[in-house]
């Protein structure tokens, strides 16, 4: 009976194996069925790993890219100017930064709406008055809000990689995706691929062969004053890091607290384990 069962188990494995291979099926480069076509490139980020911290200079550059490029279309509704303290800015600097923006406020005592300079407690103003206006100005689809983009995007890792990710603490799928997408334009689609009009081919795009957003960055577009290279790749890295900060401003705090908690549990656990050994020493179990 054991033999019968072993052969049954083997048969099961073979069936599962062939099924998995069949699932891969024929690849047709011109009409792909699974997106993204290319997986995001894994970059090295300062905030990765158990002791990761944000690179403040990088975040400041990323903010500059957001302000000068992305913010023309993308809102960042959930982020207040005061949050930018995490970029290493002083209170005075944040006041100045906020005051550069005009905030529509009101009504005042007379019942009128009015414009005033921004305060640190204000959030980044949106480029469009509402989603409908944003959609109308961008060919029918509103550009997504960027506050959480780095956590709201991620390409499925698949088996067995998602298991390895637990041990490598891979949690940078969002920034990796954004960086790959921003640097993934300028590629020639495979022969025969149909690119809908008004869209732009990008093999890293999560949900299709092409997207409405045209290539947003080009070399030299944003001036850096810290001597960092002014290339699309550098801009993409910086703005991805900044978006991770925007999505998870307490990341450093989280990892720092985490380390203390882990050490505590380790020491406490060791002590309790030794006590347990002692208590059970006289009982066979």
């Amino acid at each position, binding site marked *: 009976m054991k033999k019968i069962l072993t052969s049954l188990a083997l048969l099961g494995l073979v069936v599962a194996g062939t099924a998995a291979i069949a699932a891969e099926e024929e690849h047709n480069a011109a009409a792909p069925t699974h997106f993204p076509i290319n997986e995001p490139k894994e970059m090295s980020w300062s905030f990765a790993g158990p002791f990761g911290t944000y690179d403040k200079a990088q975040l400041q550059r990323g903010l500059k890219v957001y302000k000068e490029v992305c913010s023309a279309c993308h809102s960042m509704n959930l982020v207040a100017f005061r949050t930018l303290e995490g970029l290493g800015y002083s209170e005075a600097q944040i006041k100045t930064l906020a005051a550069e923006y005009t905030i529509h406020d009101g009504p005042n005592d007379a019942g009128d709406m009015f414009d005033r300079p921004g305060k640190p407690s204000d959030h980044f103003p949106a480029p469009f008055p509402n989603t409908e206006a944003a959609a109308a100005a961008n060919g029918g689809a509103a550009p*997504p809000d960027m506050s959480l983009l780095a956590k709201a995007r991620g390409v499925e890792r698949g088996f067995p990689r998602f298991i390895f990710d637990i041990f490598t603490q891979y949690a940078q799928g969002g920034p990796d995706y954004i960086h790959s997408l921003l640097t993934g334009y300028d590629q020639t689609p495979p022969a025969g691929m149909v690119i809908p009009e008004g869209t732009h081919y990008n093999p890293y795009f999560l949900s299709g062969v092409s997207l409405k957003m045209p290539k947003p960055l080009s070399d030299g577009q944003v001036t850096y004053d810290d001597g960092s290279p002014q290339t699309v790749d550098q801009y993409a890295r910086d703005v991805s890091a900044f978006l991770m900060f925007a999505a998870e401003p307490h990341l450093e705090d989280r990892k720092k607290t985490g380390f203390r908690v882990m050490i505590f549990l380790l020491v406490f656990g060791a002590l309790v384990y030794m006590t347990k050994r002692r208590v059970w020493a006289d009982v066979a179990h």
Partner: protein
Amino acid sequence: MSEGHSTYTPKTGIERWFDARMPLPRLVHDSFVAYPVPRNLNYMWTFGGILSLMLAAQILTGIVLAMHYTSDTNLAFDSVEKIMRDVNSGWLLRYLHSNGASFFFVAVYIHIFRGLFYGSYKAPRELLWILGCIIYLLMMATGFMGYVLPWGQMSFWGATVITGFFSAIPLVGNWIQELLLGGFAVDNPTLNRFFALHYLLPFMIAGVVVLHIWALHVVGQSNPTGIEVKSKTDTVAFTPYATIKDAFGMIVFLFVFAYFVFYLPNFLGHPDNYTVANPLKTPAHIVPEWYFLPFYAILRAITFNIGPINSKLGGVLCMFGAIAMLFLVPWLDTSKVRSAVYRPWYKLFFWLFVADAILLGWLGSQPAEGSYVFMAQMATLFYFAFFLVVMPVLGLIETPRRLPNSITEAVLEKKKGSGHPARATAAPEITG
């Protein structure tokens, strides 16, 4: 255990005063200090304590989160983000709560599989087992409704899909679905009633947990040999023996839990839930939380009509049937022997069943297309065959291994058989 005799003797005046009026200290003493537990329990038996801890932690973090949360479709998503950004330690509370739900299920699945392996559901523990199944069912309802509260894309579409199941029920289906939703689609009334129920159900769970523990204390714990306690030498006192072992189990569990909370807080979630719900935009793949995936795979495996039952209703019936199987386990298993330790064939099928459940979980996360559907159908077939064929038949035809006469004998035999006593004491033991 139902020995009837309380060993509690009040020592101080205040204890005597209480004991004469409401013997709460006596109850605590008899239940958590003097209560005898089998001496051979392994670490699989620490999950009851771990689950109590998780329930308490979920209720505590949940109550504080509710103080900051707003259950209005226009405000819910932003209120959760306000917790993440502006509330003091709000990020910690929310990550503890959302990952806590996942780890609650991790613990409950280990607890259930432990019961299946060691035959913990057999007489006289049927009611104990069924109460556990009710807790599990309540947990599923609570987990599902909790996932809707952040009002992200997966919240909304998950709610749409899952409440849609009910419309498959003949005659009253639509009525039930509308009652659940408070309308014709997932909207503000849905969110509000889900929030109210999400707050209510954990306290109902706590109530059933009390019954579960009560039933446990009447029949006593089972143990890895599956042999009932026969003499005093078979047991040790709950305190300090079980308390310290449970405490160590909890710390190890919390260590893994903390690893996820602090280093991979979004690993078990779905990125789409960080996008606010949009009824006009369906996500590419709607997937429920990981702990529902095996049942989701079973639901989608039924792609064909069975006589008058269409595939949709068939899927829903199979999904609920998969959970209903658990309730019937005490009567499906015909074996006289409890523990899989002495049942070589059952042991094999048990591990195949574990593999099958994991396979179903993985299939649930994949799109229902191509060969995945066939694999899910085969896995579903095995899932039901395990309960409806393997369990009853194996109990009748299998020859179990020789059972020891008592727990004490089993323990001493194991001790003698372990061979190298010097090395055995030097090496840190893992499984108690």
